[in-house]
């Protein structure tokens, strides 16, 4: 009798222990893979906070599938190979259901093989150069045809630019983007001598001769525009030098793809007024969703001066889409979610609807904004409709026949439409 009681008691204790363990396992783990130290910390810390804010909101609203979300934050420290290690840690050790992360293309390329090997799920929120489509990655930032190409169109048609300076930082994103832009410009009839390409190292600070070159290049009788893929804080001395050498936006406008509200915050923008940036989101766009988002962000971060920017919107959309897809699939299992998310819609913060397409890219509106003296952007042009992200550029000979379609029957990230073959090489 006593023995029986003992067994019963211990079994109760055991079962309660088991159930407690089950409770602990009964959260959905969300991995956050953004650099919190090193050179990229400036930009990526904001995105980590955005994901945490979204998780908090989702938990307040009751979590997902009746479970709470649990963030797992790791720091890959702006060290590209470490991104692969940290991805492995998140997937193999922490067993996260989804990862939000990466900023630079090189960090994404580093994490990619691990994601494919362990069948993880990554939402990548930054504009990038395209030429990639993995079944394990969802690209919520802009592809070149959602940022660079419309910006060039704007300069060509509305500003009347005929001569082009493609200036960039020396790494993969500017180089690929400029390759695409050069091919595009040539297709539009721009001659080789009317295009000037210039690369500078990360953190370049002495812009005197480059700006003087741009000035010379621009004084040949044709309207000249600068397309800038200059990244990071090298932009500040660049714009300063433009101002000092007396180049104003109505002489030679500069359209930038990496300069947003965050980069301009705390910087005196009066010499920059009128220079342009192409994004899919600006904080200044007035819509109910946006107002709500900005308010929530300022409250979460506890700083009234903090700004919002495009990669934050991309993170927001990616998170909402993932949450919707999980609910639709009824599970967090990667393959099921990946199938369920195709066609899921989420309202953009700037109005309109974002759709996840079969090529794992979003449909987005493209906005061109002019820098104002308060560090915000004023939208001067936007695409009439949303633009579908194109993984493989139509303007590069090597990729013009390729499409990406992750739905049956194609199920391929790299499908050649002329030979109807899938190479399986997704990047």
């Amino acid at each position, binding site marked *: 009798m006593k023995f029986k009681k003992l067994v019963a008691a211990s079994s109760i204790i055991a079962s309660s222990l088991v159930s407690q363990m089950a409770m602990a396992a009964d959260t959905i783990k969300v991995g956050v893979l953004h650099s919190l*130290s090193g*050179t990229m*910390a*400036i930009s990526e*810390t904001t995105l980590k906070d955005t994901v945490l804010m979204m998780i908090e909101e989702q938990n307040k609203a009751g979590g997902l599938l009746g479970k709470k979300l649990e963030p797992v934050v790791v720091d890959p420290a702006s060290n590209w190979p470490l991104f692969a290690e940290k991805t492995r840690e998140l997937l193999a050790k922490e067993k996260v259901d989804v990862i939000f992360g990466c900023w630079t293309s090189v960090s994404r390329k580093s994490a990619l093989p691990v994601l494919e090997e362990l069948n993880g799920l990554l939402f990548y929120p930054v504009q990038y150069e395209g030429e990639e489509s993995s079944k394990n990655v969802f690209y919520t930032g802009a592809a070149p045809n959602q940022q660079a190409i419309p910006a060039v169109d704007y300069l060509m048609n*509305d*500003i009347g630019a005929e001569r082009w300076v493609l200036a960039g930082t*020396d790494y993969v994103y500017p180089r690929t983007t400029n390759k695409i832009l050069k091919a595009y410009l040539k297709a539009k009839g721009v001659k080789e001598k009317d295009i000037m390409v*210039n*690369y*500078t*190292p990360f*953190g*370049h*600070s*002495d812009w*005197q*001769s*480059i700006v*003087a*070159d741009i000035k*010379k290049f621009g*004084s*040949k*009788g044709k309207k000249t525009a600068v397309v800038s893929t200059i990244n990071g*804080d090298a932009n*500040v*001395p660049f714009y*300063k*030098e433009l*101002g*000092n*050498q*007396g180049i104003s*936006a*109505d002489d030679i*406008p500069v359209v930038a793809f990496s300069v947003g509200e965050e980069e301009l915050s*705390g*910087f*005196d923008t009066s*010499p920059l*007024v*009128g220079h*342009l940036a192409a994004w899919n989101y600006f904080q200044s766009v007035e819509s109910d969703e946006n107002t709500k988002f900005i308010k929530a962000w300022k409250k979460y971060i506890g700083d009234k001066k903090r700004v919002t920017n495009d990669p934050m919107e991309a993170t927001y959309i990616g998170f909402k889409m993932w949450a919707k897809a999980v609910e639709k699939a009824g599970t967090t299992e990667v393959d099921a979610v990946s199938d369920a998310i195709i066609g899921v819609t989420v309202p953009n913060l700037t109005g309109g609807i974002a759709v996840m397409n079969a090529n794992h890219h979003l449909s987005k509106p493209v906005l061109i904004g*002019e820098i*104002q*003296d308060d560090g915000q952007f*004023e939208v*001067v042009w936007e695409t009439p409709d949303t633009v579908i992200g194109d993984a493989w550029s139509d303007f590069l000979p090597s990729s013009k026949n390729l499409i990406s379609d992750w739905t049956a029957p194609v199920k391929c990230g790299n499908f050649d439409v002329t030979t109807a073959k899938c190479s399986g090489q997704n990047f």
Partner: protein
Amino acid sequence: MLRICCLLLCMLLPCNSFAESTASNPELTSAISKLPKNSLRELPKLIETIEATESPKIKTILTSLLNGDLYYIRANKQVVRVVKNTEGLYDQWHILTDEQYPAVTKSKLKKIRTNNSIRGQIKSVLALLDLSHKDPSVRLEAVKRILDNPDKESTARLKKRLAKESDEAVTQTIQVAISVAALKFGSLEEQIAAVSVLAESLEPAANNVLSRTKESLTEKTAELAEGETLSAQEKTLQTAVNKALDKIEQKRDIYSFAENLFFGISLGSVLLLAAIGLAITFGVMGVINMAHGEMMMLGAYTTYVIQQMFPELINYSLFMAIPAAFLVSGLVGILIERGVIRYLKGRPLETLLATFGISLILQQLVRTIFSPLNRQVQAPDWMSGSLEINPIFSLTYNRLYIIIFSLAVFFALMLILKKTPLGLHVRAVAQNREMARALSIKSDWVDAITFGLGSGIAGIAGVVLSQLTNVGPNLGQSYIIDSFLVVVFGGVGNLWGTLVAAMSLGSMNKFLEPLTGSVLANIIVLVGLVLFIQKRPKGLFPQKGRSAD
């Protein structure tokens, strides 16, 4: 007849009185009322309408629109001119009547948007209005604005102005502008005459219009059928244009050489400032100080703090920051010397590692105190803009001042080392420590002061760098390598060598950059330097004598 007269009077009178009372007219009022609803595409037409009213108010309206001070009140669509006041509210005035309304928050107002091409249009309109401005420099600006793209109407106005113009520079520019227009629209004789004026001008617009004429003539020749040739006059024009372009090109080459030289010297002077402190600590004392860059960073942050403390004295902040940065970095330098380096004397490897550690500590310290984000240091007004020597050659003020300043620092330091007792002690200790000690020089004390002096100068360099680049925790790292290069290239322990090395590295870089791009230019300079050091390990000006070993 009488009735008609009466009617006319009746029509005129109220109009007049209205115009007097509000300094406006109905066309203008209606155009202004359309501003809030207008899209960017329709705005240029509206501006033309406003311009056509020829009301004296045009200038205020367009200037406000250009500067982005033109808003409308969301509630009643009333267009107002606003100025942000000290409390962060917006003072507002009715754009036509100048009646002041109570100040409001920004959310009550909406800006009337413009874009680049509209701003260009407004500037052209304002330029025509400014042609008769009493200040010659404003007139010159106005003519230059028109110069880029003169049309028939603006040319007519320019010709009228030319007759009245008294200022020489303005007269010349007007003549160039008229010639540009003549070459564009005129008859062949007018074109040939215009070319001779344009050949003397360095204005980019002159070059532009000449190259375009050359192109169109070449196209014309290509289109000609077999046997046909250009007319005699056209040929004269062609040779004249070619000659003029050659002439301009020659002048441009000279100026572009001068420009490269200026860029080189200005980069050199930045390198000099960064390296000169190191030339003392590394060159004279023989300490490999990896935290040298962080001393510059501290100087830059000192500038930031000074600007935060005295926000209304931005124009003088640099003068306050220079001594402050010298003190801050100098004191930190003395602390490092007293706390760490003196225990590691004669162990260069350990010194290198220890100072590298200190540099990381200082960086993290700044990250914790000021956040990892870059801080904004404002440029005083007198540091921005450029000194225009001619239309294609101008020197930016900030670089000009920096060149002068860094040379001043250099010679002041020379003076300290050569003419003061402190300098004597420093040199004595550097040459022969034991002997100096025997002569009752406190070598420990001299070490600390020397290190403080070198660090303090690095701090001053930081003040200068804050004007050129980003003020962030990584500021020092990007200059430390360059500084070592300059000191080694110039010859360790030789200040003149540092000067020559900095200037020649700067110029080499800037002359290579247009040819190779900045990435390759850096590499070439570096490879050249490595080869040079192989050949002459002691640099340009090696120290001679026993103390050299």
